[in-house]
């Protein structure tokens, strides 16, 4: 069996294409059902966000699976394949797994390191589980991916720093004030950029917003969005003593804030610092103000410099996550290698239990004079013999299953202990216990097609 991902994203398809290939929330169940019915598909998860539509599938053969998935897309979206084939990417096995891990960690996102995708993939997986579209392979893989996504964000700082100018201003403010809960913000010029910045500050708890604009009507309009106070430019300049953060973005030709005004304001501020953000071009705030004690002045270039530095840092963190991904892939392969051995071990253990039970019944029938205590002792000791006899073979086959000759060893083991008939039933039980461990009901793959539950790993994976 093979893991395959077929999809399109913001890099391979423009928005006018992507918008034709979205799955509405209400249609997802039906889409998953249909995907399950697609030829060659054993398990499936559909990840659909504004930036990507991806179909993750476990297929029983690689050959033609791309064709079958494209057929599914053609039928579902009612778009001829010629119109979307050039936008599709198909990754198989290693690449598909790595792609899923990169996606869930935000490394494949437009804004590298964003966290939203983690929740989206998790939801997609839960939905597929709910629709019984996942099985042993994807239950393990997606669970591992979600855990990795969480670890990537908690163990590295990939998502910590701002990657937009407006957020950079907020991040800077946090380095000065920590929290904005008791801070007042003054906006000079009610432009789009300053609105966006104050929106972030407000969302981070800024207590009061004062909006100053040449036209008071626009100031009132913006102030109403943040339950703020409108005022004229002249009034605003007299209020420097009471505010903590000033965002300036007017269209003025000359500086509207000079050193004299700020010095006067600082006298009234006592020991409190003042954070000035000048996002206007040409600049609104005299750069000489930056020299005044306890005043922190940042213009648009400074903020862009911060964004650039943060992006660089995210790249460094991304490299760490790539290493984590490689380790996770190795873990998954390790699990895959033991996947085939688990039903065999279970079958052997069950056989041992069954033989033991039968022997005990026979023994107790022949020796009815034994009391309860004697029976218990005999039962315990004979059970111990069975366990001791099976422990070494079980440990050895676990080790051997991970080697190149693993398949051969498993076959021999099955033959020697005559477990051929018991393995299939044991595989079903292992599958059920895996699903229970994930907190979900047991998943039965492709019931309509009566395909066996995967128990052995094909050599190709």
């Amino acid at each position, binding site marked *: 069996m093979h893991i395959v991902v077929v999809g399109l994203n913001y890099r391979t398809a423009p928005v006018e294409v992507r918008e034709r290939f979205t799955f509405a929330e209400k249609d997802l169940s039906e889409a998953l059902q249909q995907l399950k019915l697609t030829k060659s598909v054993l398990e499936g998860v559909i990840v659909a966000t504004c930036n990507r539509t991806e179909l993750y599938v476990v297929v029983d053969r690689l050959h033609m699976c791309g064709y079958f998935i494209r057929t599914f897309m053609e039928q579902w979206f009612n778009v001829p394949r010629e119109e979307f084939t050039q936008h599709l990417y198909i990754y198989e096995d290693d690449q598909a797994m790595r792609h899923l891990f990169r996606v869930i960690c935000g490394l494949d996102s437009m804004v590298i390191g964003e966290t939203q995708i983690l929740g989206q993939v998790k939801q997609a997986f839960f939905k597929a589980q709910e629709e019984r579209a996942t099985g042993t392979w994807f239950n393990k893989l997606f669970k591992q991916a979600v855990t990795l996504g969480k670890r990537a964000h908690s*163990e*590295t*700082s990939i998502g*910590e*720093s701002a990657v937009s100018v407006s957020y950079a201003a907020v*991040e*800077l403010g*946090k*380095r*000065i*004030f*920590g*929290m904005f809960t008791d801070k007042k913000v003054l906006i000079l010029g009610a432009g789009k950029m300053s609105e966006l910045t104050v929106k972030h500050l407000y969302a981070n708890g800024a207590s009061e917003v004062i909006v100053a604009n040449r036209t008071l009507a626009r100031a009132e309009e913006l102030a109403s969005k943040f339950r703020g106070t409108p005022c004229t430019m002249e009034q605003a300049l007299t209020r420097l003593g009471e505010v903590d953060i000033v965002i300036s973005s007017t269209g003025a030709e000359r500086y509207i804030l000079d050193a004299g005004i700020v010095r006067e304001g600082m006298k009234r501020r*006592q*020991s*409190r*610092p003042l954070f000035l953000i000048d996002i206007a071009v040409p600049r609104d705030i005299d750069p000489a103000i*930056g020299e005044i*004690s*306890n005043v*922190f002045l*940042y213009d648009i270039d*400074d903020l862009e*410099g*911060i964004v650039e*530095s943060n992006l660089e*840092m995210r790249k460094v*963190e991304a490299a760490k996550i790539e290493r984590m991904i490689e380790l996770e892939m190795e873990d998954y392969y390790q699990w895959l290698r033991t996947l085939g051995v688990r039903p065999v071990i279970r079958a052997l253990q069950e056989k041992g239990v069954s033989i033991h039970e039968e022997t005990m019944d026979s023994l107790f029938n022949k020796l009815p004079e034994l009391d309860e205590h004697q029976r218990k002792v005999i039962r315990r000791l004979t059970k111990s013999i069975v366990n001791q006899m099976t422990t070494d073979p079980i440990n050895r086959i676990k080790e051997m299953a991970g080697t190149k000759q693993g398949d051969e060893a498993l076959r021999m083991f099955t033959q020697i202990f005559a477990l051929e008939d018991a393995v299939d039933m044991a595989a079903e039980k292992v599958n059920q216990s895996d699903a229970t461990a994930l907190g979900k009901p047991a998943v039965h793959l492709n019931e309509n097609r009566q395909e066996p539950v995967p128990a052995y790993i094909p050599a190709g994976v």
Partner: protein
Amino acid sequence: MTLAEQVYEALIYMYALSLLFYFSDCIRRNAGAKRTGTGFLVVVWGLQVTHVILRMWMEGHFPIYTTFDFLFIFSFSIVLMSLIMTRVQRSEFVILLLNIVGFSVTVLNRLWFTAGEISLHNWQTVHGLLIMHITLANLGFAALTVASVFALLYLFLHHKLKNKKWNDTVRRLPSLEVIGKYMDGATLIGTPLLGVSVVLAVLSIVAERRWHLLLDLKVISTGLAIAIYFGYFIVKRRKQFSMMVMSRWTLIGYALVIISFLSNAYSAFHRWTGE
């Protein structure tokens, strides 16, 4: 080498390892190194406790009377405070700086002083006062060390932000406001402790009528330091100066505390017999 000395040696190695891992995390983010550094710090703390217990067992009293003991308890307080700080976010650099101080004191203590037993028979009359004086001075010293570390960080972050030098260190430090609050808090705890410790010392001078000691270098420098710290609170209350000025003030006060400690060699004050 006694068992207590062997434990002390071991804790130096553990401390060095802890510091190494913290350095590694501070140079380049490494959550694993930070965790390991904290783990070693816990071991250091455990070894310090073991050392004290062994000394108590061997000497029959809590080891507090010698310079060695004073510095040992000081480094113990620093380690304890660092462990408490690990619960605070963005505290890596604070812990690193605190432990550079703690480690230096631990090593120099080993090189310069010995943990030899001292005779206490001369001190019986002022025994209680002496213990209180040493304990309060020690705790005050530790709290003011923490305040100074925050003052240093404040100046560093202020410089970086003022000059728009944005880097990963800036990202990882607490905000100026938070650093300022911690600095205030530590100074607020350390000043009265040191103050009461000095009052006890002055009371002993008065009780023994050794008036000349009031002009002793140690007494003067400690008095000046306390005056600076009290001045800090008056100025702070009036909100006259920015936190940057207050940070410098804190560091000057701490420098005087250090001078006071180092002036032991030139001071007659601690050649105190209690007679």
